[in-house]
């Protein structure tokens, strides 16, 4: 694709974040969508493309009063929204539609109007579920010990990821948790699934977000500063974490990241601001290495030395991340929202003169990945 030919022209989160027991999941989507429409000064009649995950795009389109000529229901976990942005950019360029709305809403904490999740008939039901995993905290985390042994990473270093992200969250009034954390706090928090303690695991909250995309030519006519899509990538590896090719690196991360960076024509050193989906504390380590920001096995020390902390050379997860900002279940949308805020210059913890931001997402348990390179300037 031609880098920068499509832009994000509207972006917003739900009015509230955190605990929202008075709002159903469907209406979280729609609150975010209406906020994004307002942000772009558009009405539902201006939208001709709809993309979502977690709810059917049919339900979202009909509920909002949209008649789309482009529909994307890609649902590969928390990074689905990165894939929606990628597909929307291609669809707009191809002329399938002109203005795409991507929505997310999730009643992850309050479970209001949330579709019942079924176990499914996949092979995981036979070859993982019988061994007693109870959701992501016991599955996403399984590769970590092999990574830690391979590279000599300590539990203190894992804890440091949470400490640094809390420093970012402290600068963000919308963050769920803002009180300072010490390494001791993290290492003394309740053991969930060794080596993961409670404060190394993401929050469980309610919320939503929405994005609107259009061509770069039109983008200048919208009220907000356009955020251009420079490069995109996506991939999948395995629906069963036990079948990952290598527990020390994610193939989906590498493939997705490489594609996005190549398309954008950038290298890691060009990146001013980075979001890496952090459902658990080990994910930024894998992301930093698999995207090429650090050599193999170097990410834990990189974070320990405060390069990703406030004042560091690579500001990472500046909203506080899934560990401290919010995590509804499919966090990818919030990573994209923070990248947009940073490039508009409206982030609570604003990175001075940020020009290029990367939002990197994961879905399932290292099952899928999407990477979006954004900029406030055209190449």
């Amino acid at each position, binding site marked *: 694709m031609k880098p920068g030919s499509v832009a994000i022209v509207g972006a917003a989160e739900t009015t509230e974040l955190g605990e929202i027991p008075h709002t159903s999941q469907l209406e979280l989507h729609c609150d975010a969508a209406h906020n994004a429409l307002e942000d772009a000064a558009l009405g539902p009649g201006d939208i001709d493309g709809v993309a979502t995950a977690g709810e059917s795009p049919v339900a979202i389109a009909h509920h909002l009063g949209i008649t789309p000529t482009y529909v994307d229901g890609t649902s590969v976990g928390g990074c689905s929204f990165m894939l929606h942005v990628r597909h929307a950019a291609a669809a707009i360029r191809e002329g399938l539609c002109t203005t795409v709305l991507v929505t997310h809403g999730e009643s992850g904490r309050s479970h209001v109007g949330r579709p019942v999740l079924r176990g499914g008939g996949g092979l995981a039901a036979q*070859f993982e579920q019988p061994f007693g995993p*109870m959701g992501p905290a016991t*599955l996403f985390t399984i590769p970590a*010990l092999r990574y830690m042994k391979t590279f000599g990473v300590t539990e203190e270093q894992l804890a440091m990821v949470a400490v640094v992200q809390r420093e970012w969250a402290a600068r963000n009034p919308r963050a769920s948790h803002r009180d300072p954390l010490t390494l001791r706090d993290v290492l003394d928090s309740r053991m*969930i699934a*060794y080596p993961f303690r409670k404060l190394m695991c993401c929050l469980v909250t309610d919320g939503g977000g929405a994005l609107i995309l259009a061509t770069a030519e039109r983008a200048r006519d919208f009220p907000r500063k356009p955020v251009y899509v420079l490069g995109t990538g996506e991939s999948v590896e395995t629906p069963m974490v*036990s079948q990952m090719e290598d527990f020390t690196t994610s193939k989906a991360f590498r493939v997705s990241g490489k594609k996005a960076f190549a398309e954008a024509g950038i290298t890691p050193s060009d990146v001013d601001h980075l979001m890496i989906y952090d459902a658990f504390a080990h994910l930024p380590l894998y992301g930093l290495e698999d995207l090429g920001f650090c050599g193999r096995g170097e990410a834990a020390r990189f974070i320990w030395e405060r390069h990703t902390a406030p004042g560091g050379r690579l500001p990472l997860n500046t909203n506080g991340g899934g560990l401290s900002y919010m995590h509804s279940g499919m966090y990818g949308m919030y990573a994209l929202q923070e990248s947009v805020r940073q490039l508009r210059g409206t982030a609570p913890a604003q990175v001075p003169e940020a020009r290029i931001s990367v939002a990197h997402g994961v879905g399932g348990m290292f099952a899928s990945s999407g990477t979006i390179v954004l900029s406030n300037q055209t190449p």
Partner: protein
Amino acid sequence: MTDDRSRYVPRPTPETQPFWDGTRAGELRLQRCEACAHVYFPPRPFCPKCAGRKVRWFRASGRGFLYSYVIHHRPAPGFEPPYSIAVVELEEGPRMMTNIVNCPQTPEVLVLDMPLEVVFTQLSDDIALPQFQPVGTSR
């Protein structure tokens, strides 16, 4: 205390039935491609490497090593926390999820790369679950 909510019992499909027939007979069975000799898991009626459809079940050694794990400290139906959820790398190459049993569920005892051997736990009349224990554990 073991969580007395009913434990999850897997339901075989036609393609995986030979695996579960094997565990009920006290055997860990894998598949090998007759064209390229690739050994793989989980079961499917074709080779994931070369797409060959001539594949054959065989009895694996039941030995491997501890590749990675977590120790779950929260309640789960049919399990007594803390319990390990592990991935074993089999001698023949494939990896599978399992539990490490018949030993203390501590990081001190569960050391990565330790040798393991398969044991079978009867979950129902039809299903025996392949779990692993440290090699040389007396039963």
